[in-house]
Each structure stands twice: as structure tokens, then as C-alpha cells.
């Protein structure tokens, strides 16, 4: 039996706008276990940040129950704040303070915690100890933001979009730091709209759309719900497209969907499907323009559930 770090039931958050009320979070249930890395995956505007900020005690929910580390906001605020670490989606730390000065400042707010020197070591900022924030790169700033979340030696860490807008190398560095959190036995809740990030980092993922959890499980489990583990994507060099019925009838094909840039087949065994696909294109007198195969990802899960892509406005016709 695993113990629970975060539990929330039927969470709702309504914003009043000029055009009436908008439900940012609309009946969301969540259970995060102690020691796991849990991901909220969803497109921009799905309600991830609103949810995480309610769990962090920075926003008040319109209704619903929230329990964090067995405590409630409004009752044990100081205790909770001492035991959690937070990195907001966007914080512009003072430009003219050094890394060490900022960490010392944040450290002073906590009763117990880690030496700033140890934190800098852990996030790879030791060499930048005396550098002003204004002189740091985007990746270094983001690592500093995570470092600020760790000074209080928290048992539970919230990271809101920790790698958004970073270059690939900086993202990998942050992934290393986030994996370390799990090894140290900390619980991590992170939000992301990058499916690769969720797949690599998270023990379990909740896919969020329109303020609701629409799928929950380990990345592997979620991908398995597609019924097949590979995706074959191809495009033809003609105006005509092959018939969808014939594509669905190809061996080992579970699902067919059309993208603006081609057609994607979810398949169990690509080596069975591909020769049959080539034969079919030949019979219909179509020329193959491109063909790729890849493992199915959380992105495919999201597309299957919503008909939309995670980080684009692109729609999909089934």
C-alpha cells in the first residue's frame, strides 16, 4: 500500500471573465503517491497551471477537496510551506543578485534545509555562485529556479513547466536534476506539454484536457491503450489519397488517421504492415513520397483521446 502525497477530489476553479464564467479546472481528481514523479501532461490552457497552483496553496479552488502531505491549506499553511518546494512557471528573480545571494535569501525562509553550496553543486551552478542572475543563460536561470525550490530540503517538489523554452542540452541537464529528486526519495509533481519529457521523467502521467483528467497511468500503460506500439507515417506525391477503408484493412493496423502532412497508421508489427502498404499504393497507382516508422508516444495517446495535438493548433481527421 503506497502512502499518498497529494490527493484532490472534484477540483473546480471558475474564473469570471467579461464573456461569463470559464471553468479552468472542471472536476479534476488526482492522487500522487509518495516518492513518485507524477506528470500533468496537456496542451496550453488545459488547466495544468491552475491545478498545480491550487495544490501549492497559491490559488483558492472554487470547490473540491485538496490534501497535501496529509494537511490542508488554510489549516497548516506554515508547516506545509516548510515542507514543499515550488518552481513557478515564470519567475524573474532579481537580476542584480548573485546565485549564492539568492539561494541564501531563500534558505533563510526555511527552518531546516540544505546549504546553498550543496544545492549549487546539485544543480551544477557552483561555478556561477558569484554571477548575477542577469548574466545567466535561460537554462542556468531555470536550474536556479529549481534550486530555490530545493533549499528547504522539501519532501514534495512542484515544478511548473520546468523546461519550456529551453534548448535541448539545457533540457537534458534539468531532466538529470529532476531524476535525482526521485533518487533522493522526494515526490515530484511537474506539468509539461512535452510528451517526451513526461515519458522520460514521470513514473505516472495524468493527461489533462479542458480542466479534467482524461487518462491516467504509467507512460507505458497509456501507450499500450493504443493497442499497438508502433506508428507508420507516410505521404503520397499525388493529390489523390488512398482509401481509408483499404488502409484499415491492412494487416496489423489498429488505427488510421490523417494529418495535414500525411497519414499515420498505428500498427502492431511494422514489418508486416509496410510490404502490404507498398502493394496497396502500387495497386492504387500512387507514388510514395515519404515513409517513417517510430514507437508510439504519449502524443499519439493524446491525439487519439482528443483529436488534437499537444503543442500545436493542428487538428486531425480520423
Amino acid at each position: 500500500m503506497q502512502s499518498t502525497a497529494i490527493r484532490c477530489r472534484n477540483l473546480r476553479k471558475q474564473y469570471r471573465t467579461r464573456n461569463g464564467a470559464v471553468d479552468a479546472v472542471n472536476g479534476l481528481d488526482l492522487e500522487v503517491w509518495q516518492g513518485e514523479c507524477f506528470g500533468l501532461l496537456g496542451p496550453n490552457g488545459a488547466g495544468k497551471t491552475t491545478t498545480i497552483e491550487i495544490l501549492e496553496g497559491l490559488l483558492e479552488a472554487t470547490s473540491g477537496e485538496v490534501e497535501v502531505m496529509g494537511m490542508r491549506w488554510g489549516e497548516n499553511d506554515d508547516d506545509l510551506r516548510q515542507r514543499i518546494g515550488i518552481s513557478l512557471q515564470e519567475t524573474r528573480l532579481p537580476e542584480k543578485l548573485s546565485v549564492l545571494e539568492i539561494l541564501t535569501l531563500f534558505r533563510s525562509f526555511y527552518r531546516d534545509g540544505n546549504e546553498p553550496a550543496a544545492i549549487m553543486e546539485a544543480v551544477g551552478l557552483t561555478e556561477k555562485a558569484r554571477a548575477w542572475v542577469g548574466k545567466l543563460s535561460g537554462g542556468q536561470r531555470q536550474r536556479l529556479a529549481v534550486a530555490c525550490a530545493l533549499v528547504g530540503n522539501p519532501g514534495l517538489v512542484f515544478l511548473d513547466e520546468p523546461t519550456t523554452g529551453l534548448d535541448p542540452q539545457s533540457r537534458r541537464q534539468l531532466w538529470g536534476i529532476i531524476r535525482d529528486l526521485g533518487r533522493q526519495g522526494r515526490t515530484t509533481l511537474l506539468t509539461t506539454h512535452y510528451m517526451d519529457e513526461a515519458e522520460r521523467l514521470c513514473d505516472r502521467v495524468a493527461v489533462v484536457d479542458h480542466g479534467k483528467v482524461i487518462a491516467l497511468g504509467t507512460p507505458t500503460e497509456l501507450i499500450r491503450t493504443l493497442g499497438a506500439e508502433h506508428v507508420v507515417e507516410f505521404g503520397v506525391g499525388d493529390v489523390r489519397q488512398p482509401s481509408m477503408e483499404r488502409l484499415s484493412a491492412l494487416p496489423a493496423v489498429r488505427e488510421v488517421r490523417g494529418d495535414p502532412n500525411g497519414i499515420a497508421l498505428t500498427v502492431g508489427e511494422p514489418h508486416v504492415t509496410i510490404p502490404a502498404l507498398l502493394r496497396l499504393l502500387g495497386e492504387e497507382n500512387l507514388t510514395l513520397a515519404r515513409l517513417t516508422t517510430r514507437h508510439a508516444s504519449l502524443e499519439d495517446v493524446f491525439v487519439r483521446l482528443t483529436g488534437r495535438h499537444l503543442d500545436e493548433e493542428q487538428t486531425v481527421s480520423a
Partner: protein
Amino acid sequence: MCALPEGTWMKNRPYPLKELLLARFREFCREPEVIFWVYGFPLLLAVGLGIAFRNRPMEQIYVDVEQHASAEAVAGHLRKSPGFVVAIHSAVECRERLRLGKSSIIVEPGETYTFVYDPTRPESALARQRVDDVLQRSAGRRDPINTRENQVQEAGARYIDFLVPGLIGMNLMGSGMWGVGFVIVDMRVRKLLKRFIATPMKRSDFLWSMVGGRMLFMFPELVIILGAGALFFGVSVRGSLFAIFMISLIGALCFSGLGLLVACRAQHIETISGLMNLVMLPMWLFSGVFFSADRFPAVIQPFVQALPLTQLNNALRAVILEGAPLATQAVRLSVLLLWGGVSFLIALRWFRWN
């Protein structure tokens, strides 16, 4: 990258209030523009205004005498008195020179003397009196009363003496409002306030650090303006330095409270800039920074006197110029404390952290 070692506790946990104050102090010192506006600008203003309004030597009076048989005699009388620059010109030339401001008055000699001048020009009005005086006396007028002159030019009664306390007051207002109000809204825009309340930081520590920072930065402001006044213009302080310090401290406290109040809800830099100008403009105009607030009509005096900057300037002038003891300023200081205290309480009630 390595994992965090377990249990690396800090032996001496830093004090949050001290660290917050240190952060304020460091940020302030590392911002050259802020240093200029807080310390350099009032200095330049004092020096500039001090030079512009310095006491000038007695002005010369330029008199033209129109060509006439008795022109030389008239000019002779005038030249015997000090302070006149006299020239004789043709009628046309005289008019031309008066029009161009090269002379202040034309004397047309004859049976009766005619003074041609523009009474709305102060120097011409003065010239008319002086010229008339000299000519009447030289023609034999005897004054019924003997008068004597005892000319005084004392430090303490000049414009610069009046100006320096006003500049101190104005500066305390400006840097209190900007140093607290603007800084807080900037932190709100940067989501730094939100980040702070996501930690166990005590909110009161944060607010005290803002006010405490002001108290700290106020002291050099005071020293620089008073020092520059003494050094460049010989402005002397009649009251005690302690009294000036205490009044400034209470002034700074009052304007930190107001700064906090205008910043308590504002979400944008533009909003706070506008709000602060709205609050400060009436005080720049009415609170007697550059000229005495007593000059405003009696109808608006209750409003003028209710402004905190008026009370701060009055108290500073009383101590610096008149040597009043601190205790006599109790009422003025109470007005300041009331403004500051009420603002602070309302700000606390309405403060928006997110």
C-alpha cells in the same frame, strides 16, 4: 551533477529579515541609475536653483536723457548718485533703446520733466522712483524726516536657505514612493512576490524589509543635501541634527506607508507610475517645496496643510532655519505618523501578493 547529500544542515541559519534587507541594499547599490535619481538629482537641483536664485549685487539703473539744452545738467545730477548709468540720445534713438530694453526709462527735460517708461516692467517702475527722487533733491527738495540705512545680508534669509529643507522633504517623498511603491509593483510584475509567498517567508518580514530599506537609504540622502547646502552655499543649520534626523525618519516612514498603499493593488508598471504621480503632484505644487505654502489663498489652506509633505517641509524649516526644538514639532509629526500609519494599515488589508 550530483545528488544532494542528506542532512547538510546550515549551522547558522540566516535571519530572513536581515537577508531581505541585504537583498534590498545590494540591489539598490548595484543600480547606478537609481543612485543618480536618489542622490545625484536633488544635488544637481540644489546647485542649479541655488545659482539661479543667488543674491545678485545691486542692480544698475539705465537712464536715457533726450537731447535738449538742459540734458547735460540733468545727466550730471543723475551721474552724481550711485547706481545710475546715464546716456544722452536723440528722441528717436531714446524710444528705440527703451523698446529694446537697453534703457529702463527716458527723461525728457524741459519746463516739466517727462518720464517715459513702461510701468509694468519692474526695473522701469523702480527707475522712475529713483530718478524722480534724485532730480527733486537736486532741485532743492528737503525731506521732512531723516532716514538712515542699515543693510543686512545674512545667511538664513536667502532663497537657498529656504530651498534646502524643501528639497530634503521632496526627496524623502520621491524616494519613499518610488523606493517602496515602484519596487513592490516591479516585484509583482516579475511574479517575485508570488514566489516569495510560495515559501514560508513571513509577510511582515517582507514589508518591514521594504520600510527598513527606506530608513537605511534615507540617511545618505539627508547628509548629501544638507552637506551640499553647507559646502556650496553656506547654508547653516540652527536646530539640532538629531531633530532633523528624527523628522526625516518620520517623513520617510510616512511616505513608505503611502508608497505601500499605492502599490498594494497595482498590477502594471504604468498603473503605479500614474498613481504615484497623481499622489505626488499636488504635493509638489502645494506643499511649499520651491516657495512658501502660505502664499496660497486661505480657502485652500486646510487642504494644503493636510498634505503630509507640507507638514514635513514646515517641520524641517522650523528646525533648520529657526532652530526650533523637536518637541515643538509634535503636531506636524503626528500628522505625518497618522498619514503613514493609516496608509500602512489599509495597504496591509488590501495587499495583493499574487
